[in-house]
């Protein structure tokens, strides 16, 4: 019995599309040309959305905004795998997920414009409000998954969060419960390697985030987060497993925050330009373009057209957003309680 081995664990990394745009045929997920085209357009839509949002903030037309530049594959690829009944508990930096799932674009902008009315997801789209308190949405997803299981619904619950969030107790308590109750869940970590100015190595002493799943008794996998096919494949497999009663999966999408943390941040203060330049070369959109190009399905012109199309969609949304009347003061009281307290009623009248 002396010094006995009681557990062996291995963490793996999934990549499908290399940086030259070559897909591993054994790992390439089943996707129609049309689906791949759609993915590409969504990634461009996310890119254009992001560019416009940053510009709107600079012009003072919306408030502080957290760019998703560089994370398009991780967001679009994962959301693309979801089914309509699934539930999503996002953080605040997954606009690519919202866009993929068809969340109204004007509403996204309206939210970042400081209007909480925009957090109301359309009926039928189970996306929880943006969650600014890092990691605190994770236990909510656990609860929804408990409810899914209790109701015997076919849904899976997905929660998104960043590398920084893995340091929070919420992450731990949520992952642990998901393991114990073997819940139909997928934990998707957008490891963009920075939490504001704090680099990954100050966030954790581990070599991967995926290995953290060892602490919870279920599978964790790292995927190349700039590889939309790998992200899609890992998510789809995890969703299938969850739907089949196989329990939760933790997916680390290793990607990079190419922009500032938010429009209120200046990343130049704390990270070397070389690092950013390196990752700029790994742009997830470029990589997909290389793949398409090799198949004869892409030319630079294709990008221009797709971007123009995206820009029209976004511009419409901006107009729509800017036509929304500001909330009336009385809307302060909207939804605070199903029925206001007498004091609230008085306060509302007194406004």
């Amino acid at each position, binding site marked *: 019995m002396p010094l006995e081995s009681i557990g062996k664990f291995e963490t793996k990394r999934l990549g499908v599309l290399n940086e030259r745009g070559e897909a591993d045929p054994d790992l390439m997920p089943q996707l129609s040309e049309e689906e791949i085209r759609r993915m590409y357009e969504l990634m461009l839509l996310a890119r254009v959305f992001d560019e416009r949002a940053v510009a709107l903030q600079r012009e003072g037309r919306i408030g502080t905004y957290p760019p998703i530049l560089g994370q398009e594959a991780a967001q679009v690829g994962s959301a693309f795998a979801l089914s309509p009944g699934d539930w999503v508990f996002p953080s605040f930096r997954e606009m690519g997920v919202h866009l993929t799932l068809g969340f109204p674009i004007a509403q996204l902008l309206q939210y970042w414009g400081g209007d909480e009315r925009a957090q109301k997801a359309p009926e039928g789209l189970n996306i*929880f*409000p943006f969650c600014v308190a890092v990691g605190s949405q994770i*236990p909510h997803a656990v609860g929804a998954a*408990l409810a899914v299981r209790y109701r015997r619904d076919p849904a899976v619950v997905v929660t998104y969060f960043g590398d920084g969030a893995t340091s929070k107790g919420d992450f731990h308590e949520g992952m642990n419960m998901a393991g114990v109750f073997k819940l139909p869940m997928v934990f998707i970590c957008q490891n963009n390697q920075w939490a504001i100015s704090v680099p990954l190595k100050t966030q954790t002493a581990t070599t991967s985030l995926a290995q953290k799943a060892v602490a919870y008794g279920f599978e964790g996998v790292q995927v190349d987060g700039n590889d939309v096919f790998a992200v899609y494949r890992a998510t789809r497999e995890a969703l299938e497993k969850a739907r089949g009663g196989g329990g939760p999966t933790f997916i680390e999408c290793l990607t990079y925050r190419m922009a500032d943390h938010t429009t209120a941040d200046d990343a130049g203060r704390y990270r070397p330009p070389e690092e950013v330049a390196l990752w700029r070369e790994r742009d997830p959109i470029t990589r997909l373009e290389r793949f398409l190009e090799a198949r004869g399905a892409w030319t630079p012109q294709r990008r221009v057209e797709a971007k123009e199309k995206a820009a029209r969609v976004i511009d419409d949304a901006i107009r729509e957003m800017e036509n929304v009347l500001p909330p009336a003061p009385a809307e302060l009281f*909207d*939804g605070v*309680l199903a029925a206001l307290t007498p*004091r609230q009623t008085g306060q509302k009248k007194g406004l």
Partner: protein
Amino acid sequence: MAQLNMVQAINQALAYEMEHDDRVVLLGEDVGRDGGVFRVTEGLIERFGSERVLDTPLCESGIMGAAIGMAAYGLRPVTEIQFMGFTYSAFEQLFAHAARVRSRSRGRFTCPLVVRTPYGGGIKAPELHEESTEALFCQVPGLKVVVPSGPYMAKGLLLSALRDPDPVLFLEPTRLYRLIREEVPEGEYVVELGKARVARAGGAVTVVAWGSMLERVLKAVDGYDAEVLDLLTLSPFDIGAVLASVRKTGRLVIVHEAAKSCGFGAEIAATVAEEAILHLRAPILRVTAPDVPVPLAKLIDHYLPGPQQIRGALDEVLQY
């Protein structure tokens, strides 16, 4: 009608509602096989199964967060936090989430959640087992706070809480769990949230109390022409009832077992000083614990307000 103690009355309310509404599920540490450390959920796992009565890992914040997700999904979760002192680690989930699900999602999601927790002092238990920090939670817009004062009220209030569309913190005065027996109807009845109860009518001074202090107050006022209000719901509290009584008596004494500073007595006093000051003939006195952490057993009796202090305050305001 059966004579029940508060543990039994709460158990009955939970069982009744679980029987009639399959959205009601319980979760918490030891609520299942053990029936809860105070046996409040005794027998429920046997009756409703382990899918509706969940023994969870030890993680109050996670439990609270999960309950929020369940509620948003359409269930009506009831969490038991083993002692009020352990709600502190779940504070963010309650404050920033449970209470804001409806407003953040503008009604797309809601949070019909009941958080039950034993509350208050006098049971000679370890550290953090006798907290009474209700005022922390009364400060949270979107959250209701309820404190029963006996078995009958406990059942009726809990049934209301279980049907409330919004989150309710249900504070169960631990000292009363088995202290009082009352007639409790077996079937369904509700006590409306937000309404105080005149526990004793009187004309010369109004005494406001709740939870386990009520019992103490009722004993202490013997011989005084005091009107005693049992607040029952602290948030939102029954401002109308308090003002009506104070306008009649002209004097107000508030009794609570929490420390004085920023205790819930402050809100009551401030409200009266705002709305009915011209009816007051005397200072508004607060009879409370001192501004110190809740002590262990050897000092707890000196910490909790006693009958002498209550009578002292009555005598003082009656001088005016």
